[in-house]
């Protein structure tokens, strides 16, 4: 019976992998795990090759009952984990058997725990990905978040690392009170006055309750747009531009007071001026910042953005070597 039983779906738990690339041009975002770093490490610990489908939880993790012997790993947000009632460590290869139940206690820091199971979640692929995209109800488990009673199919387990394999301390993410995000300023940043851009970068922004896989809405300051006669076709609001494509990670400021960071399930385009883009490596940190958390933007250039991504990948490569010997 190669499946795992969902005893509770937690707050919002979805199947995600590396995402559904190649359909941005029709308006379909890639979805996929938001914290790529924690997702990758969970799979490493479960012995899954590459970006195998795993679970991404939000704040409160699910309760899962196993029906066969598996290796599982929990990474990401700092939370208490139990296996059949006994406390179990995160960032470690855990061995479970039929009837064992993986459970979650309250979150201590971060926002999204990841659960990888050896063999991966064997839900059907949709356009070459198992990632859930809720808006159109595709991918993942029935295109939706997990719910009590679901039976999620599992794949054939490969050769997992030894039980108790642990990620060394230096590889664990930090959860600072104020999360620093590197931002490549640009796109339509010409719409902001010079003071507005400085003030945007100087402000510590608070994450509102509107923070999910689509995007994060922030509050904490007011931003002025350069006055102009709106160009033909743009619409009348000063934050409006002629509808254009939005990069994933881009920041727009509708109304001048609520910046929005667009994320993995976001709309792919629209009519609001974008003023910069969070570098891809730092989307991991956005994913681990929850409602009530704080972020700041630090201006950087494209070379540093590419470097940040290479550094993260090199770091993961190093960890892979440490874990697999």
């Amino acid at each position, binding site marked *: 019976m190669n499946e795992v039983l969902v005893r509770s779906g937690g707050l919002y738990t979805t199947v995600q992998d590396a995402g559904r690339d190649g359909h*941005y*041009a029709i308006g379909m975002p890639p979805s996929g795990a938001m914290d790529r770093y924690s997702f990758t490490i969970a799979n490493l610990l479960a012995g899954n090759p590459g970006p195998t489908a795993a679970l991404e939880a939000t704040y409160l993790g699910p309760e899962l009952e196993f029906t066969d012997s598996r290796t599982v790993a929990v990474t990401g947000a700092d939370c208490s984990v139990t296996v059949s009632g006994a406390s179990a460590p995160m960032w470690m290869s855990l061995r479970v058997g039929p009837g064992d139940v993986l459970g979650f206690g309250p979150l201590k820091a971060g926002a999204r725990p990841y659960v990888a199971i050896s063999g991966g979640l064997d839900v059907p692929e949709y356009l070459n990905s198992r990632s859930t995209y809720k808006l*159109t109800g595709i991918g993942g488990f029935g295109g939706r978040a997990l719910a009590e009673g679901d039976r999620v199919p599992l794949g054939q387990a490969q050769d997992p690392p030894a039980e108790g394999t642990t990620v060394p301390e230096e590889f664990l993410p930090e959860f600072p009170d104020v999360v620093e995000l590197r931002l*490549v300023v640009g796109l339509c940043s010409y719409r902001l006055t010079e003071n507005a851009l400085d003030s945007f970068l100087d402000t510590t922004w608070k994450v509102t309750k509107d923070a999910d896989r689509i995007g994060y809405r922030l509050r904490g300051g007011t931003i002025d747009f350069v006055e102009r006669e709106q160009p*033909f076709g743009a619409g009348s609001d000063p934050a409006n531009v002629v509808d254009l494509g939005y990069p994933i*990670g881009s920041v727009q400021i509708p109304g001048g007071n609520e910046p929005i960071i667009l994320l993995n399930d976001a709309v792919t385009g629209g009519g609001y001026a974008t003023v910069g*883009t*969070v570098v891809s490596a730092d989307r991991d940190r956005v994913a681990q910042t929850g409602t009530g958390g704080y972020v700041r933007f630090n201006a950087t250039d494209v070379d540093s953005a*590419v470097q940040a991504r290479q550094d993260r990948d090199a770091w993961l490569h190093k960890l892979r070597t440490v874990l697999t010997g």
Partner: protein
Amino acid sequence: MAETTVRLPEARYEFGGDEFVFVELDREMSLQANFKAMAITGALRDRELEGVVDICPSNASYLVRLDPGKLHPTELVEELRRLEHSAGELDGTRVVSTRVVDVPVLFDDPWTRETLLRFRDNHQDPNVTDLEYAARINGFSAVEELIEAIGSAPFIVTMLGFVPGLPFCYQMVPRERQIEVPKYVRPRTDTPERAFGYGGAFAVVYPVRGAGGYQLFGIAPAPVFDGTQSLPDFHDRIAFPRPSDILRYRPIDRAEYDHVRSEVEAGTFRYRIREVEFSPTAFLEDPDSVNRDLLEELYR
């Protein structure tokens, strides 16, 4: 006509972090800017560059998504600048193979009317319907005249996006005849599936139910998105519209709406489609005559 005098500024190249390059061809909407976006993105597609993940032409700009592990964004920008010069100039010999499609729309329908009445507080003018408001601010004496203007000339798909399958459509008429409306003051949290909306200078059909800020004019009986790919027109792609498709929004009555709906539900509906060769320069010189030919071809 006014359109032919549009001079595009220098393109502006911007990095959207490490994974995207955004290129703004103009800040205002024009068919020239869109034809240029289509030409450059078409040429880029033909180059089949390693590391290019998505090529997204948009109204007066375009966006390219890339894998920076395979292609550095600055290298991509160099290539795009070259393409701007080799492919971006509109010349008289360029012909686009595209489709002209009949898209039926029931205007002033009960479903979008119910929705827009529910969100009156989000609107510029809470005392009238979206159609009445749009007719008034565009100088039409009655809603029927506005509907007739929408049906009288086709639209061209200048961008896909927002959500999967949503076509941004720009009417193929000179700027002085363009209909322009603001978006809602505050976006709605609900829009019916297949609603026909208008915002800025763009007409759209909403593929799925959800949030939206465009003025609501009507509803299309046929889908633009089919995730299950059950209708024949969706066997190859989950989204029906393609960039540069020429769509004629044809006003229909309730009886025809119900008939098309029954065909969609039976899985037999097919759009009326004609393959055409479209010359952007010929169009810009004499839009009315090109539109007449396109519609004649469509309904022949």
